[in-house]
């Protein structure tokens, strides 16, 4: 009798354990711990050297004077969701380190990643520029035309409401305009890939290739 329901029994047990893992949220309790466990026994020197280089680079960035930030924290990315074009990431710095909601997150190259949405004691959730709720004012660096960037149309970003007489063209850099409530002026966002007229014909829209390497996010800077 029980044998007839073996699949169901195995499914219930496995899903139960999976839900337990989800409920415990191990990545939250021990940020970065899994990385240490993987690295230490193997003495993966190459990985350590690369991490050292990255951290030195970030330390340099943290010590560097950021005209747009008065406060900067270096954080490690401990969760990305989904794995490609992440709409949301979790970092291992939280209230204890001074991270607050609406702080801006940039990559180690100083490129815009997103904005802090929720802060826990030792972790913070970040909505990236790919998230559907992302809308921010950006500027075409060369022509100084303002548009609204939306986190849509993966793997590109969409800049709407560029003026009809826009001189922007593919290859132009897009930066934050400083007109948004949270994002300072001048942060690199991406490069224009294509420009099309909007359906209404009153504006142009631009497809932007993001500058940040979302496929290799290890450490980020959080600032305000």
């Amino acid at each position: 009798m029980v044998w007839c329901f073996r699949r169901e029994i195995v499914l219930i047990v496995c899903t139960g354990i999976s839900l337990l893992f989800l409920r415990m949220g191990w990545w939250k309790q021990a940020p970065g711990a899994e990385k240490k466990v993987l690295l230490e026994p193997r003495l993966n020197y190459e990985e350590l050297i690369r991490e050292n280089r990255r951290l030195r680079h970030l330390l340099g960035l943290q010590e560097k004077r950021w005209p747009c930030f008065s406060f900067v924290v270096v954080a490690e990315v401990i969760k990305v969701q989904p794995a490609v074009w992440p709409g949301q990431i979790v970092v291992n710095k939280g209230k204890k380190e001074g991270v607050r909601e609406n702080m801006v997150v940039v990559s180690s190259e100083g490129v815009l990643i997103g904005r802090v949405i929720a802060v826990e004691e030792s972790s913070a959730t970040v909505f990236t520029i790919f998230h559907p709720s992302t809308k921010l004012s950006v500027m075409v660096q060369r022509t100084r035309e303002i548009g609204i960037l939306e986190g849509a149309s993966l793997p590109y970003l969409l800049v709407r409401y560029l003026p009809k007489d826009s001189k922007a063209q593919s290859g132009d850099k897009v930066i934050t305009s400083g007109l948004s409530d949270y994002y300072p002026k001048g942060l690199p966002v991406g490069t224009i890939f294509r420009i099309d007229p909007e359906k209404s014909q009153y504006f142009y829209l631009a497809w932007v290739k993001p500058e940040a390497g979302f496929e290799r996010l290890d450490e980020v800077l959080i600032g305000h």
Partner: protein
Amino acid sequence: MGIRIFTEQFLVVLLAQILLTGVFKVKLAGPVFFFLWILMLGWQGLGVVSILIGFLTGLIYDVLVSGTLGWSSLLFCIVGYLNNYFPADKVMERVLAAVVFGAFYTAALTVDASYGLVWQKGEVFKFSVFFGGVSALLAVIYSLFLRYQLWSRKKY
């Protein structure tokens, strides 16, 4: 299924997941070989094994991609279970199963319990169908590989 064949398959899938995902990537979206393996096990009539393997490989995959620990294992278990009830004797049926389950898996990956979808609905649909298509293609290739493996051992 012999332990030896099973171990070989695990190593092949693990290596493929680590080394080949980058090769098959199209605009950063790569296939999940663990997922294909679960489907293949189900098609061979190994229902219980596919659920168990789904659980274990899901945990491995979550660690590999820094995902939420437990989310992929939960989805793989469900896919492994549902796959047992999906008719998949012919190649076309298997392709359809890979598309359906691949789309389900991709759509589920973009959901966060606290914030809902982390992509827009249109993008979720587009990439679910895309991932399902890639999964189906690789499932056919993998199916042929398994047939060759069994044939070469004269157990076919």
